[in-house]
């Protein structure tokens, strides 16, 4: 049986009804306004509680990408994103549950799996965690940008362009793969259900004693 489910097309802002019908394994295409940021912005928003300079009720899809920006003209009035690829989500796990709650997000797009905090926030607040279909660079993003990134829509850039809050106007980005849905299902955990048994078999093959523990050097 395929791990991939239905395909959906949504436009931002996504409604709670939109995301509640989606299941782990489904593939999403999203159009509209999307924003990206990394640790610098997330800490400022979630920990320091500085208000975001963008309206996340309207722009309720967040991407961990942002691989930097290249100036299009000498005056730096607008920017071309370096081809986008979402980045590892687990390093933001500390921020995500509160990010989803405070910003009212319906989708967070990251590379790979997230932790139980994000899973629970997805269920509670009606949000999906998406990952790339395949490798992080595969979903169409740059190719479907409706316009260059405007200089006035790059915020909080003190820590460099990769860490800045950036707004993108996109048409049909995707496919994005739903990892966590609003019912608490996690696609990667389903895929890995046979993995632990196989690891146990391999442990036997290498002659690992069942009660093996590494020698501890901590004191």
């Amino acid at each position, binding site marked *: 049986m*395929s*791990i*991939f489910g239905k395909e959906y097309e949504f436009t931002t802002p996504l409604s709670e009804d939109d995301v509640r019908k989606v299941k782990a394994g489904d593939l999403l295409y999203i159009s509209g306004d999307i924003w990206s940021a990394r640790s*610098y912005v997330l800490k400022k928003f979630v920990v320091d509680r500085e208000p975001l300079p963008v309206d996340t009720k309207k722009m309720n899809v967040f991407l961990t990408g942002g*691989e*930097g*920006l*290249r100036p299009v003209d000498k005056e730096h009035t607008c920017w*071309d994103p*370096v*081809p*986008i*690829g979402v*980045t*590892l989500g*687990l*390093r933001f796990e500390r921020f995500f549950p509160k990010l989803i709650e405070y910003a009212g997000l319906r989708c967070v797009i990251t*590379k*790979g*799996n997230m932790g139980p905090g994000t899973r629970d926030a997805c269920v509670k607040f009606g949000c999906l965690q998406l*990952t*790339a*279909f*395949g*490798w*992080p*660079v*595969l979903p169409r993003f740059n190719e479907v940008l409706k316009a260059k990134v405007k200089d006035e829509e790059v915020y909080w850039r*003190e*820590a*460099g*362009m*990769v*860490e800045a809050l950036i707004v993108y106007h996109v048409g049909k980005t995707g496919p994005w793969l739903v990892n966590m849905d609003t019912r608490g299902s996690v696609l*990667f955990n389903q*895929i*890995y259900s*046979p*993995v632990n048994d*196989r*690891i146990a*078999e*391999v*442990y036997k*093959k*290498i*002659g*690992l*004693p069942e009660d*093996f523990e*590494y*020698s501890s*050097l901590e004191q």
Partner: protein
Amino acid sequence: MIKEDLIERAGYMAMRQAALHIPDDIFDAVKDAHQNESSADTRRVYDAFFEFAERRTRAGEVVCPDTGTIYYYISIGNVEIDRSIDFWRALARATVSLSREGILGQKSGDVVHHTNNNINVGENSPSIHYKLVPEIDYIEITALAKGGGGEMPGSKFRMLVPADGLHGIKKFFIDSAVSAAKGGLACPPTIFGLGVGGGIAIAASIAHEAAVLRPVGSRHPDKDIAAMEDELLEYINYIGVGPAGLGGHRTASDVHIEYSNGHMGVVATALVAQCLMAHRATVKLFADGRMELATAPEGWFTRPWRKSMSEVTK
């Protein structure tokens, strides 16, 4: 005589190639994995990858924008060079040029002060590693722009002791490689480099070199180590985390092991992952200024102890 401007040009050529082209050995391994994959879902993901890589390469764009941490590995052969060359300056200039052209991303910054000048140069960046290799008659520069997938979730270290046994080392590999590959974090199919022995600095650097400098299919000259490379490769692929972490039979393109003698109580063990995009390329620079791309570094794993052991122990 080789002067500084030639080092800059060779470094530029190597890093440009590294950023824009997936190395042949790795691309061939991915094609082979695609052909031998039994899962229809995984084949579908590979199809999307090849379509994408071709489109990006045709457009002259980086296949993966995560050009990460910037490294140069330099083997200086038996060739006349200007002794006043500042290698860091030359290679930093190459790095800045490629950053300003947008070929390198803006990923290497100051993680302590959390600042980024967007041109990938600063404290110990680019990171440069040297060897003097009298057996070759050229300078070999390998450029590496290492993405975060291989560095962050894909790299682990543990200080083992002899009581933990060989199975302790193998368990470390299995646990670490599975963790790196899950969720596609280290972008599998991955090359895993395992470094054992010496101490923390030695184990970590030989693990890194094993992952990023040895081509797919290469085997350690010690036959026991080569057999262990095959064994661990079989295990990780049997476990089935799969390409992009979506399940399937090719989690690793290869496993490379390097080891070092050292303090007999210290079983320092490190794992480093190299992602499938593997931004690496090698340029040979000859005395007459000629530059040539090579598929993999030939002047790095010279293992002088294997050649001169009997002589020094006479």
